[in-house]
C-alpha cells in the first residue's frame, strides 16, 4: 500500500509532464495549420493582383494557362503602359497633394483641439469631446449628398481642392479623439513643472506635449494619411474629369475604357496606388496598430 502510494504520484507526474508537452505541441501545430489557411484567404487577392500585373496582356486574355501562376514570364509592360499611356500619374499627383494637405490640416486642427480639450478644460469641454466622438461615427455616405450641394455652391465641384476641404471631416474627429487620450495620459505634474519652469501655453504644447505625445501624433498622422489616401465616396461623387481625379476613383473608373478591361494594367494601377499605405504600414506597423486600437480604449 505504502509503496504504491509513493510510486503512483511519481509515475503520474511523469505522465502529466509528457502529455502536457505533447498537448502544447499539438496546439501549436494546429494553430500554425489554421493560421496558414487564414493567411491564404487574406493574402490571396493581393497575390493574384501581383501575378496579373506581371503578366502580358495575351496571357491574361487567353485562358490557356493556370491564372494563379505566371507561365509566360514576368513582364513590366503593364506598368509601362500605366505610367506613360494613362492619366495614372496625374491621379497620383492629385492624391499626393490632397493627402498631404489633409494630413497637415488634420494635425494642426486636432492637436490644438485635443490639447485644449484634454488638458486645459473649459466650460463645456467634456460635452464637446463627446460630440467629437459622435461626429466620428457619422459615415460619409450619410453626408455626401448635402455636401455635394455645399461644394457645388462654393464652386469646388470637380476640383481636388474640394477634397482638401471635405476630407478633414473624415480624419479630424478621430484624430482629435485619440490625441485627447494621448494627452490625458501625460501626468498632470508635467505641465505643473513646466508652468513653474516658466512655460506659457504654446511653449507647453510645443516643447512638452507634442514631443512627449509623439507616438500618438505619428499614429494620428498615419490614420489621417491612410483615410485620405483611401477615400472613395467623396471623389466618386464630386470629381468627374481626369485631371482632377484621385487614385482610388481614377483607377477604378477612368482606367476602364469602353468595356475593354485591361486587367493587367488595372491590377498594376491598383498595386501602385495601394503601395504608399502599405509601405508606411510596413515601416511603422506599431504606430499604425496603436492608432487603430486607440479609438476604443482612450478618452
Amino acid at each position, binding site marked *: 500500500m505504502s509503496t504504491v502510494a509513493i510510486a503512483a504520484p511519481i509515475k503520474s507526474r511523469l505522465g502529466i509532464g509528457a502529455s502536457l508537452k505533447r498537448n502544447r505541441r499539438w496546439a*501549436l501545430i494546429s*494553430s500554425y495549420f*489554421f*493560421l496558414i489557411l*487564414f*493567411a491564404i484567404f487574406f*493574402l490571396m*487577392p493581393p497575390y*493574384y493582383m501581383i501575378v496579373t500585373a506581371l503578366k502580358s496582356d495575351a496571357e491574361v486574355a487567353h*485562358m490557356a494557362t*493556370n491564372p*494563379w501562376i505566371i507561365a509566360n514570364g514576368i513582364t513590366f509592360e503593364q506598368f509601362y503602359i500605366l505610367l506613360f499611356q494613362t492619366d495614372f500619374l496625374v491621379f497620383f499627383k492629385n492624391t499626393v497633394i490632397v493627402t498631404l494637405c489633409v494630413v497637415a490640416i488634420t494635425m494642426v*486642427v*486636432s492637436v*490644438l*483641439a485635443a*490639447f*485644449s480639450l484634454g488638458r486645459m*478644460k*473649459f*466650460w463645456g469641454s467634456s460635452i*464637446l469631446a463627446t460630440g*467629437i*466622438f*459622435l461626429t466620428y*461615427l*457619422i*459615415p460619409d*455616405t*450619410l*453626408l*455626401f*449628398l*448635402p455636401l*455635394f450641394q455645399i461644394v457645388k455652391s462654393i464652386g469646388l465641384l470637380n476640383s481636388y481642392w474640394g477634397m482638401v476641404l471635405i476630407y478633414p*471631416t473624415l480624419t*479630424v474627429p478621430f484624430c482629435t479623439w485619440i490625441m485627447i487620450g494621448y494627452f490625458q495620459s501625460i501626468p498632470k505634474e508635467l505641465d505643473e513643472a513646466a508652468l513653474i519652469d516658466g512655460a506659457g*501655453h504654446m511653449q507647453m504644447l510645443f516643447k512638452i506635449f507634442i514631443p512627449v505625445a509623439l507616438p500618438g501624433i505619428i499614429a494620428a498622422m498615419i490614420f489621417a494619411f491612410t483615410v485620405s*489616401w*483611401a477615400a*472613395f465616396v467623396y471623389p*466618386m*461623387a464630386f470629381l468627374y474629369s481626369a485631371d482632377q481625379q484621385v*487614385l*482610388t476613383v481614377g*483607377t477604378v473608373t477612368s482606367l476602364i475604357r469602353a468595356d475593354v478591361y485591361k486587367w493587367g494594367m488595372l*491590377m498594376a494601377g*491598383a498595386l501602385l*496606388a*495601394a503601395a504608399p*499605405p*502599405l509601405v508606411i*504600414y*510596413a515601416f511603422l*506597423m506599431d504606430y499604425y*496598430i496603436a492608432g487603430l*486600437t486607440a479609438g*476604443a*480604449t482612450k*478618452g
Partner: protein
Amino acid sequence: MADTVQSWGPDSIPDTAKAPVRVKGLQKFMRRHSTIAVLMCLPLIIIVACLIVYPAFYSIYLSMLNKSQTRFVGLANFTYLLSRDTFWMVVKQSAIFAISAVFFKALIGLITAHLVNNLPVKGQRKWRGMLLVPWVIPLALSTLGWWWLFDPTHSAFNYILKGMGFEEIAWLSDPYWARVSVILVNVWYGAPFFLIMYLAALKSVPEQLYEAASIDGASAWQKFIHITLPMMHNIIAITVLFSLIVTFANFDVVQIMTAGGPRNMTHVFATYSFLLGIRSGDLPLGAATSLFMFPILAIAAIFILRGVRKRGREIG
C-alpha cells in the same frame, strides 16, 4: 469656519482693498487660460459645425424638396420611397449585408486572434503584420482585385472549381451569388480589424487569471468562457457596434463590384442613394434614402459611447 473668516477684524480691511487687484491677477490668468482653450478648439468647431453638423441638418431640409429643388414637398420623398419595392429590397439587403458580414468578421477575428495569441511571442508580430494586410490596402483598390477574381470569363476561382470537377459559378451576375460575393469581400476586408482589436484585448487579460484558473482545474474551453469572454465582452461589443456602423454605411464594395445589380439585388443604402442622388440627379430623394440609415446608426453610436466610456473607466 465662518468664525475665522469674520474674526480678521482690522486686518481684513487692507485685504478687501486689495481684492480688485487679485481679480486682475490669477483669476485673469485663469480667464485668459479658458479663452486660449476655446480659441484652440475653434478650427475643430468650425470644421465640425460647417462640414458635419450643418450638412446633416441640411440633409433633412434637402430631403423635403422636389427633384429640381424648387418646391417644398414635405415628407413626399419618404412616402414615395416607402411605397417602392426596390427600397424595401435595399432595406433588407442592407440588413443582411451588415449583420452577416459583421458576424463573420467577428468570428474570424476572434478565431485568428486566438490562434495568433497561441504562438510563441517572437512570431506573433510577423503573423499579425501579415494578417492585417487586407485592412491596409485601400478598400476600393482591393475590391477591384476581387472583381477580377470574380470576372465572369476569367474567374480564377472558377478555374479552381473546374479543376476540381465542380460547375462554374456566376459570381456577380447571379443575384444570390452576387450577395454572397459582396459579403465575402467585406468580411475579407474587415476581419483583420477585429483580429487586431481582440488581440490587444487578449493581451490585456492578466496572465495570473489563467494561472489561477489552471490551478482550479479549468479546461481551455472553460478558461475561454469564464475568463477571456467576460474580460473582453466590452471591447467585443465596441468593435461589433463600430463595425456595424461602418459596414451598414459601406459604399466601396457594392459600388465597384456590382453597382447594385443584378436587378438591384445587391444595393445597400449608400449605393442606392448614390444612384438616386448623383447618377439620376435627384438629390432630395437620395438624401431621403440615406437619412433612413440615421436611426440605426444613432442607436449603435449611443451604445458604442457607453462601451467606450466604461472601458475608459476600467482601464483607469
